[in-house]
């Protein structure tokens, strides 16, 4: 990942953009933080937030003409109600608290500045420069300091409030002279003595000074406040429009910065776009916001502390996080994609040290819901997949992350699980049914039933193609494996005479659309829709429909699934997130493989936010969603209710079952393949390998512990066969049990077992594994 890629990803996520109020505020007060403190009753903290940005906060806080209020998200004419009364809140805050952070002494600067005027803008310029250690001569033409401020009634701006702020100003390296005679000569002398001079025109005595100095107040530079004469800046002219305190402050602030830049001899105009109001890119949804008008003010003089608290609490603390709201994975890491992009970038750049974002990179389900809800289509899945590929390239992908899925894939493309045959009756093959690894693994009997049904209903011969689509390799970042899988799939498809494929799995559909676009593919549901229903098909009741995340942009598939459900006699209710906004079941992207706890979280959310039972039309979704005990039925269960396994008559949902563990799926596929090859195509089975003949007996608790550890029946069989062959094992004479280990590849498996009296069967008591390699004893 290049730095420029990071920048691009970061740019897409606008979560760190300022809220509308802050962007509209000419000096960018952190209103969101201010109202948060106020709403919590922390008036002193709120005051500090103001003082951080505002000069003379005790003055400006009382009189600011608050352009932020109109910009407030709540003031939006379309979906808002009333803007937060930010001006009144600031006023209440500075009246109710005098807490201001003490400005820390800073080293003196090597230049000086002169500020002319007694109004708010001159005071601001002096304040800003003085705070940075610039020695400032503040020359006030009038006897009293304040300029236009002196015209405010005592009830609005008490003299005391201004005096308090001037005290702070005097604590800075600012010398104040009053009653100073100002003319063109004096200004020239100031320009000679100082790095720069600012004229704050909101002093009545200065209203004609521009005539003497020959500059046009209408032509002042809007960003630097330059008069055109080097070193001379001016702002806050009094004119036809009413005096705007916040504009006066902005002008003083702009000029102060310009004087500093003049002293340092750097550009007056470079990167100053974010001074003054600007447009923010932040997006904030009002969807879940309860409407409420502004808090009324009992005394028109200002909010009481309680009123202020109530009004501040109306601030919705604008932010985006649309994606975080809908994705438990994104919420888990306590940030948002912009932050995550940086963490991922850092992770990929680590040479020595901890790769702190590995788990994040490995756990995303790549479901794309984030991109769907993001105003800028930020797709965390794409970012994570890219990072995974890079980790693989750097040889830094933790072996454990996707190991199980890749071993499963290996098996699913081996001769034990693959099958490509034309129609067994006619030998023709206009169509081929692709059940996908998950359906074959979870419910092999449904594969057979569906295949028979398709053969009966479609013209031109229906073949069968069992082979992995390659999605797990894509998810694991293994381009090399993916390329092999794709090629071998393509070869089988050609061998069958390039049939049209009928796919039971939308992940296969998505994968082929990307990688094998030349293959005509249709989803099983679209193909079934116009066909007659099989004998005995049908169900009843109300189900929450779960669209698989890989069907997100396949509206036709989703519609067919809905139509099918209707034809089958069940009533559907949409999930809270459905259709184009559907959620992943926790399996996608190999989330379940790399981070089972995360997948459980995802399932929990889906199944508690929506009423049971669920209807799925992806085998993986069905198994995944049911792992927390939620009742989930597969659409094919309704098509072939006679095949429902382990029906529980007492259950209100007789078709329900939880998914078989991975070990079973592995076995199921191999058995299905062998059975179909034999029954439909008279293919003789090759001789079984010795270990395959071993019969295992596992109590349910043992089975689920073994499944959770992702130890396959095959691993256990191999370990036992190995021990029986070599005689290398441990035994426990007292219990008659044996303990063996076997390391077929990277992982070492341990199995504790005992032969059942008389025969091939072995009872397994426990099994575990590790990756550490046994180096031997000394």
């Amino acid at each position: 990942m290049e730095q420029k890629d990071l920048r691009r990803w970061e740019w897409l996520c606008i979560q760190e953009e300022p809220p509308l109020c802050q962007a509209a505020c000419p000096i960018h007060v952190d209103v969101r933080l201010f109202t948060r403190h106020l709403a919590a009753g922390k008036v002193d903290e709120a005051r500090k937030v103001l003082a951080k940005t505002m000069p003379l906060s005790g003055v400006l806080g009382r009189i600011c003409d608050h352009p932020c209020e109109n910009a407030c998200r709540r003031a939006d004419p379309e979906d808002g109600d009333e803007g937060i009364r930010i001006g009144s809140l600031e006023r209440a805050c500075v009246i109710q608290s005098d807490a201001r952070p003490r400005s820390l002494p800073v080293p003196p600067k090597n230049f000086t500045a002169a500020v002319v005027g007694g109004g708010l803008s001159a005071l601001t310029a002096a304040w800003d420069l003085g705070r940075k250690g610039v020695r400032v001569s503040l020359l006030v033409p009038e006897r009293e300091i304040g300029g236009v401020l002196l015209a405010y009634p005592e009830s609005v701006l008490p003299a005391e409030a201004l005096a308090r702020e001037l005290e702070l100003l005097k604590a800075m390296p600012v010398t104040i002279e009053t009653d100073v005679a100002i003319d063109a000569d004096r200004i020239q002398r100031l320009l000679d003595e100082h790095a720069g001079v600012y004229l704050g025109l909101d002093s009545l005595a200065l209203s004609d000074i521009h005539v003497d100095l020959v500059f046009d107040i209408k032509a002042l530079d809007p960003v630097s406040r330059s008069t055109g004469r080097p070193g001379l800046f001016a702002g806050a002219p009094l004119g036809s429009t009413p005096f705007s305190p916040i504009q006066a402050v902005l002008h003083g602030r702009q000029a102060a910065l310009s004087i500093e830049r003049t002293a340092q001899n750097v550009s007056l105009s470079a990167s100053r776009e974010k001074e003054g109001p600007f447009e923010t890119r932040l997006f904030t949804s009002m969807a879940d916001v309860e409407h409420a008008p502004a808090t009324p003010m009992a005394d028109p003089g200002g909010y009481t502390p309680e009123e202020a608290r109530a009004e501040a609490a109306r601030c919705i603390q604008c932010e985006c996080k649309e994606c975080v709201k809908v994705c438990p994975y994104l919420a888990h890491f306590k940030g948002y994609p912009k932050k995550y992009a940086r963490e991922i970038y850092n992770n990929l750049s680590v040479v020595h040290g901890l790769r702190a974002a590995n788990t994040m990179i490995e756990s995303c389900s790549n479901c794309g819901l984030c991109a769907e809800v993001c105003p800028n289509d930020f797709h965390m899945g794409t970012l994570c997949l890219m990072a995974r590929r890079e980790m693989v390239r750097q040889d830094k992908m933790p072996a454990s992350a996707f190991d199980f899925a890749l071993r499963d894939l290996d098996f699913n493309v081996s001769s034990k699980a693959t099958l490509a045959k034309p129609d067994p009756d006619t030998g023709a093959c206009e169509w081929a049914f692709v059940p996908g690894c998950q359906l074959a693994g979870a419910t092999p009997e449904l594969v057979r039933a569906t295949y028979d049904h398709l053969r009966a209903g479609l013209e031109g011969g229906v073949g069968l193609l069992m082979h992995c689509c390659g999605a797990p390799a894509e998810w694991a970042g293994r381009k090399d494996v993916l390329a092999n899988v794709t090629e071998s799939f393509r070869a089988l498809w050609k061998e069958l005479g390039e049939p049209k494929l009928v796919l039971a799995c939308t992940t296969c559909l998505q994968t082929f659309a990307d990688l094998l676009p030349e293959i005509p593919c249709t989803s099983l549901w679209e193909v079934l829709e116009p066909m007659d229903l099989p004998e005995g098909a049908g169900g009843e009741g109300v189900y929450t429909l779960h669209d698989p995340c890989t069907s997100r942009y396949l509206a036709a598939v989703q519609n067919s699934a809905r139509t099918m459900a209707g034809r089958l006699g069940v009533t559907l209710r949409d999930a809270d997130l459905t259709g184009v906004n559907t959620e992943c079941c926790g399996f996608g992207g190999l989330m379940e493989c790399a981070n089972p706890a995360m997948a459980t979280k995802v399932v929990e959310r889906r199944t508690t936010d929506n009423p049971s039972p669920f209807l799925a039309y992806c085998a993986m979704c069905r198994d995944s969603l049911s792992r927390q005990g939620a009742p989930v039925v597969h659409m094919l269960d309704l098509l072939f209710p006679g095949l429902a396994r382990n029906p529980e008559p007492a259950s209100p949902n007789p078709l329900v079952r939880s998914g078989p563990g991975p070990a079973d799926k592995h076995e199921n596929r191999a058995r299905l393949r062998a059975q179909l090859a034999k029954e439909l195509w008279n293919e003789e089975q090759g001789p079984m390998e010795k270990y395959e003949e071993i019969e295992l007996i596992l109590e349910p608790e043992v089975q689920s512990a073994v499944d959770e550890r992702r130890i396959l029946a095959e691993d256990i069989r191999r370990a036992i066969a190995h021990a029986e062959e070599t005689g290398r094992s441990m035994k426990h004479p007292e219990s008659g049990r044996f303990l063996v280990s076997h390391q077929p590849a990277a992982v070492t498996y341990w199995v504790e077992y005992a032969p059942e009296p008389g025969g091939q069967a072995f009872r397994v008591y426990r099994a575990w594994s590790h990756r550490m390699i046994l180096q031997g004893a000394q």
Partner: protein
Amino acid sequence: MQHFPEIIARYEGWVCQKCNEPLVPGKTQLAYLGSVFDVELPVCPKCGMFIVPEELAMGKILEVEQVLEDK
């Protein structure tokens, strides 16, 4: 060397099938991603075969594996 006496104690009574020797605590070496660890485990005193107990494999060892993988 790391010792886990309570865990080893649970594997008392196991015998090496080949040598017919009861296992005794002994020094073994485990390696992963370039790091080598000395651990005391139940070992056959004659042929050196040893057990990596379930409690260690799914506990301490798993933790160490994960830490090494994130480096």
